[in-house]
């Protein structure tokens, strides 16, 4: 949290300098954020060229709006709001529209929570070797890509950028509760993939809640 506060403060200083016409400060701001922004955008739009164009356009909009930016709000919130709006526009283009899941089906269900999968054997075991980690990464990526875009967005903003629920809520223009719900369901699905992968690799079935009840 402290590191994040320090980062926000550095962003604020750079933005103030850029507002005063310091091009080098703006360059530094872009350099600081471009890779993670690209990683998030790539995960959401799933096309390298689209993600690159999208992030470039988002930074350009930041540049155009520098005069209007006030230090009271977070740069992350502002920037990712632009990124998310551009992503939504892109996904709505003809031929790009994906089958979105019904949000109502994704609402919190206590029975879902009762089946929350997990890998209990991880505790105390050897650190994951590189091969298993790579395998897990591929499995999680496949599972992530199967999620609706609003679930992918929230997972990536959280895991890659470490954004708070409040920041994500503002960036996506939804309530904190919706962010929590989306994140929980997305992680449940990812955890299932993790458990399956663990089972395949180790030959052991991860213990679930039901197992521990028995």
């Amino acid at each position, binding site marked *: *949290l402290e590191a994040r506060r320090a980062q926000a403060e550095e962003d604020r200083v750079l933005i103030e300098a850029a507002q005063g016409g310091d*091009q080098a400060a*703006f*360059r530094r701001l*872009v*350099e600081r954020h*471009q*890779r*993670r922004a*690209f*990683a*998030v955008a*790539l*995960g959401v739009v799933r096309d*390298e060229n689209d993600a*690159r164009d999208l*992030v*470039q356009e988002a*930074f*350009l909009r930041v*540049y*155009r709006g520098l005069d209007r930016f006030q230090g009271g709000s977070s740069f992350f919130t502002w920037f990712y709001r632009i990124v998310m709006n551009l992503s939504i526009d892109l996904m709505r283009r003809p031929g790009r529209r994906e089958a979105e899941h019904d949000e109502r089906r994704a609402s*919190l269900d*206590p*029975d879902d*929570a*009762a089946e*929350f999968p*997990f*890998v*209990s054997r*991880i*505790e105390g075991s050897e650190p*994951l070797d590189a091969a298993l*980690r790579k395998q*897990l*990464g*591929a499995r*999680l*990526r496949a599972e*992530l890509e199967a999620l609706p875009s609003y679930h992918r967005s929230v*997972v*990536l903003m*959280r*895991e*890659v950028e470490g954004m*708070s*629920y409040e920041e994500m809520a503002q960036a996506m223009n939804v309530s904190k509760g919706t962010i*929590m719900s989306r*994140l*929980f369901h997305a*992680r449940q699905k*990812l*955890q299932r993939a*993790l*458990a399956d992968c663990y089972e395949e690799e180790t030959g052991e079935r991860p*213990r679930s*809640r039901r197992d*521990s*009840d028995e």
Partner: protein
Amino acid sequence: MKRRSSELGRSGGSVMPPSDIELMLWMDGELAPERAHEVASFIESNERARAVVLSLRLGSEVLASDALLRAEPLEQGDITDGVLDSAEAEASRRWMVPARKAPAWRVPALAAISLAFAVAAAFALVIRSANRSLPAPDGTGAVSMMAPAVEGDMSSSGASIAVVDFGARSGTVLYVPSDGEGALAVVWLSEEEYSASGVPQ
């Protein structure tokens, strides 16, 4: 949120065992400080809660590192140079063209206003030229108007005539009674203009 009875039994004391959502919130640092403290104590003493948190952490770590690994092909200058080149181009355009072009949404409105002005001007020209082309009666110009009834003259013969000097021109005003309520005044103006000495020119 459902909770297992075994968990409740193990929790001991009055601390409410955390739900899976609370475990996730705890891991993300989104729980209120008081509850976060309780959940931390619970996780220490509960194997399943520890496993949930650990597997969530593992998922987060693997996902983040995989996403950043996929972003590797992005070269440092890729986006930065593109953004700064576009920004510089925009800045130089601002210097070259001080007056900003009207936004696209304004163009139809401006066109409509221009068209309305053009139509109004054309209409005024048509009216004006039509007025000019009306044939004027030779020698006289006639104006009629309703004048208040003049009791003396109107009561007897019903009509009266007055010669009026309009300055440069002389004229005749004829009052004709009209339905007893007023009089129709007909004015003739002479075409001849008079000089200051009173001689027709």
